[in-house]
């Protein structure tokens, strides 16, 4: 773990890979230390912001004292969310071409593994999901779409994701779900929170 200064209020912990970053984020969350004002897990890093009135050095000390334990991807105790997907996405053929799989094999790879929410971002309720293997790793589209509908299910880089609301976006679209990923009247409002496991289930093509 490498600690990089991030202004006078935060420290950016840089880890070797996404697994280590998820483990550190979980350890910071679990420690529930009062010196932590905010925690921003991301792809390879965890940004830890000092609570108001707390010196950032306390955050540095905390990070040095934690012993993160790698999360078990097969952890049956973690919450599991099933996302029914109609595989009618505009980029299905492109994803097949990019991965060297048939369309049916793309769907089978997407539904055949357990994904985990690594971190959030982009929009409220959007989770970056990591899978079990690299079969579906594809680059973003060369051109972003100005309008991607809510519920669109996509891939980009090493991640899968579901657009919680209509927005611009550059992910490769496999299909869509009618599941509401974000609902302010629900507690918690986001279905996909860090650590939650996700299974995509085929609901048609």
């Amino acid at each position, binding site marked *: 773990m490498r600690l990089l200064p991030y*202004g006078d209020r935060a420290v950016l912990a840089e880890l070797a890979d996404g697994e280590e970053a998820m483990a550190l984020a979980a350890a910071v969350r679990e420690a529930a230390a009062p010196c932590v004002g905010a925690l921003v897990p991301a792809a390879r890093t965890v940004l830890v912001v000092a609570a108001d009135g707390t010196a950032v050095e306390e955050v540095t000390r905390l990070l040095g004292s934690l012993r993160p334990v790698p999360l078990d991807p097969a952890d049956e105790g973690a919450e599991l969310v099933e996302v029914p997907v109609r595989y009618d996405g505009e980029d299905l053929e492109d994803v097949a071409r990019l991965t060297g799989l048939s369309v049916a094999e793309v769907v089978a790879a997407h539904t055949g593994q357990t994904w985990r929410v690594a*971190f959030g*971002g982009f929009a409220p309720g959007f989770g970056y999901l990591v899978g079990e293997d690299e079969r579906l790793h594809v680059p973003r589209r060369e051109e972003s779409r100005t309008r991607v509908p809510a519920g669109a299910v996509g891939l980009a880089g090493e991640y899968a994701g579901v657009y919680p609301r209509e927005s611009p976006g550059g992910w490769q679209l496999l299909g869509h779900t009618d599941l509401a990923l974000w609902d*302010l009247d629900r507690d918690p409002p*986001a279905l996909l929170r860090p650590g939650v496991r996700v299974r995509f289930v085929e609901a048609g093509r």
Partner: protein
Amino acid sequence: MSATLTVRATGPLALVEDLGRPGLAGIGVGRSGAADRASLRLANRVLGNEEGAAAVEVTAGGLVVEVGGEELTFCVTGARCPVTVDGRDVGTHDPVRVAVGSRVRLAAPTHGLRSYLAVRGGLDVPAVLGARSHDVLAHLGPAPLREGDVLPVRAVERPLPGVDHVPWPRWDPDVVLRAVRGPRADWARDVDVLTTTVWTASDRSNRVGMRLAGGRVEHAREEQLPSEGIWRGAVQVPPSGEPVLFLADHPVTGGYPVVAVVVGEDVDRAAQVGPGERLTFRWVEAP
């Protein structure tokens, strides 16, 4: 009967803001809150409120509100602007008691960009995810104010503090923001371009961030950076080389290198820089 404020005019943008909703980055929700946090806190201190009580953040003046229900006490801080009650000048940074039916008007600021109109007791609009803050990026929180909106004011519980003098902010015409070298300073060919350039705040700036024009911070690397956490004050450099200084409604994560991070209290000053105004950066050491 409790007091209310009825919005009669909003100016370019008037938002309810408190100190935001920290701790929700994992579900893609940023902190948001007042762009100039120190000015909101100051207004609340003057009024004896909790420092995070919700107030109106008024961008570039133009807000007119009418007092309803019962008399109330307000205070304006932040951007220095003429404040009148029924046409009579009342000034800023002091508590002002006003009767039912009074109209409070904030004119365009002479210095700064964002003023805070706080009321004793705080605004009592419904909280969203624990905060009364509108986030312009996430589209969360109380909607931007519109003519005709009625804002309830919370009943007062604490005594009014005996504050008779609050220091006015100094409006040094030269805005020099202290910054710490960022976690990805080495992704810039020459990060010192940041401190040797006089930057101009672009008119494509908002509460999310301020786009800076006047120079280019060239990237030293071709590769893509995996998404990293963003916090207020982060200076991110997209491939165009024109830096973005993130403010209150910054994205939760971002994929361009953060080459500098402005010291917390100087982000408040940055939030008062209007389009077309100039600013510079000065390096300081991390604590």
